[in-house]
């Protein structure tokens, strides 16, 4: 990715409002994602985390505000090589293709590599996510966790600098979720990938998150931002405390 300046934020959202029709889920969200960071978007169910993510990656038009990735809008009018990878909550693998074919798809579309080299990269990516024995399987034959890992391998196929992940650990057992957290941290620390993770998995948030924003459904706004551990230990907002300590939502007048 080549941007205006390597010190400038990689992702920048200004006054972003998202929702559908007359329903506004988040209003006027402004935040920045620094290069090489793991940025977590957290909040309770229905607060608009995934909708915000869809706006960030350019799948949905925001109701208001702007998003830039490396100084440019996320969506391009014409088909172009993707500048970032996205891992969807369900995995969203193509059901008619094997796991290896799913991962190879972006490489075949956007590089001129010979098939042998594509095969080598696909095998390495699948090994990286622990799926080296599943390359010939169809997505329908995989468990939920395997589907997510295959989707992660596909999202990384083109070596993007930036990865968006929607609920990466949802539906996974604690061990698989922890392994995925370790992998994400390795990708961030060893390869310098910037990760934007949408999740409400507390363990995961504290394990991998270095900076975060917390969305609130009722106020439709960002109610806290900073290091997740610092928020857990130091933020006095009862809504933030309720979230981090798995307590019932505070009653508001």
């Amino acid at each position, binding site marked *: 990715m080549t941007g205006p300046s390597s010190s400038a934020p990689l992702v920048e959202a200004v006054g972003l409002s998202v929702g559908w029709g007359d329903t506004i889920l988040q209003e006027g969200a402004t935040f920045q994602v620094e290069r090489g960071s793991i940025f977590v978007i957290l909040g309770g169910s229905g607060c608009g985390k995934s909708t915000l993510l869809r706006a960030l990656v350019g799948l949905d038009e925001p109701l208001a505000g702007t998003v830039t990735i490396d100084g440019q809008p996320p969506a391009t009018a014409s088909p172009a090589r993707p500048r970032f990878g996205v891992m969807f909550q369900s995995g969203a693998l193509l059901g008619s293709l094997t796991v290896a074919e799913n991962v190879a798809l972006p490489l075949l579309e956007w*590089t001129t590599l010979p098939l042998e*080299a594509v095969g*080598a*990269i696909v*095998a*390495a990516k699948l090994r990286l996510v622990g799926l080296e024995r599943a390359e010939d399987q*169809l997505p*329908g034959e995989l468990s939920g966790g395997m589907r997510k890992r295959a989707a992660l391998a596909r999202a990384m196929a083109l070596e993007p600098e930036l990865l968006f992940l929607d609920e990466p650990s949802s539906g996974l057992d604690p061990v698989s979720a922890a392994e995925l957290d370790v992998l994400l941290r390795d990708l961030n*620390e*060893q390869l310098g990938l910037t990760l934007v993770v949408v999740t409400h998995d507390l363990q995961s948030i504290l394990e991998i998150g270095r900076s975060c924003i917390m969305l609130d459904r009722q106020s439709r706004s960002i109610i806290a931002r900073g290091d997740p551990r610092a928020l857990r230990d130091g933020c006095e907002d009862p809504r933030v405390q309720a979230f981090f300590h798995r307590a019932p939502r505070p009653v508001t007048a």
Partner: protein
Amino acid sequence: MTPAFSLEHVLTGDGRGEIRVSGTLELAEAAPLWSELRRLGAGAVRGQALDLEMSGVERIDGGAMALLACLRAELQRRGVRSEFVAADARLQRIVHLYGGDLRVARLRARRPIGTLDQLGRATLAVLREGQLVLAFLGQMVVSGAGLLRSPRSANWRDLPPTMERAGADAVPIVTLISFLVGLTSASQAAVQFRRYGADLYVADLIGISICRELGPLMTAIVVCGRSGAAFAAELGFMQVNEEVDALRTMGLGPMRFLVLPRTLALLVVVPLLTVLADVAGLAGGLVVGVLSLDLTARAYLSETAAAVSPWDAASGLAKSLVFALIIGLVACQQGLATTGGAEGVGRRTTSAVVVTLFALILSDATMTVLLRMAGL
């Protein structure tokens, strides 16, 4: 354009070889990197050593590291000793991430599946599919019997909308197709019959062939394409979406709740559509008789009435009941056998239509032969 990386093959003093990797290695330049790596690795033979010397690497991404790790693994499989050397701590972690420090397992050659094996497997798959359809028929009969004992246990609420979708909504297409089939058949027959001065017998041919064969068969084919495919896709999606499992856990068996209402709906509407198809087909023949053979409508209809016995119409309706059962049975069985995601639904829907069409033609031929042998 000069690549941002360089690879150099160097022989070190102790007879070992090295590929000195330096510069920036990224996926954007993976194609020249790959061809250069292949070239440099090609000369190494069993027993030699060819390490990947990494001290000059400024930056490397995952794609490029995957190619280097692939080369090392390939060299090791050929009996060439190869390791990543002189990598700094940061690079060492990337090497580890991509398995560049793992022991390389020997590849097991896959035995290709022979033609005879493939034929055997395909035959077994067809037989197994047939077995599953028969087992499904058995379950359906048992559930049907249960329904007779306790009619309130059925999902009657689904019956009227299903009848509307499979029956009333199919009226225009069944009418049009049957009319055109009658028209086309009569036109073809008229040319031949006219040579022998047997114009009037076109009415006999059309009447009997429509009522005994074409009416029920064309109706069944249309219903298979419309409703059979829809049932298979609907139940297939419910299956992959775990809706069927949810019904089971609530004690609502899919047979009574999903399959029987659909099959019963077909058993009611397919014979009714067949009657409509018979009328439309006869009307097609009548149009040819009047416009092309100069027969009067009265003469054509009188001849049809004389030629077509009540049994002809009844046997056609009996066939339509069998056809309805086949469509409901196969479509629902295929839908509930769906596995996988959207791909699985598509595969089973196609399979439902193909298997149903085959079963329709086969059962029609069988019934025709049996009725002929019985002199009916």
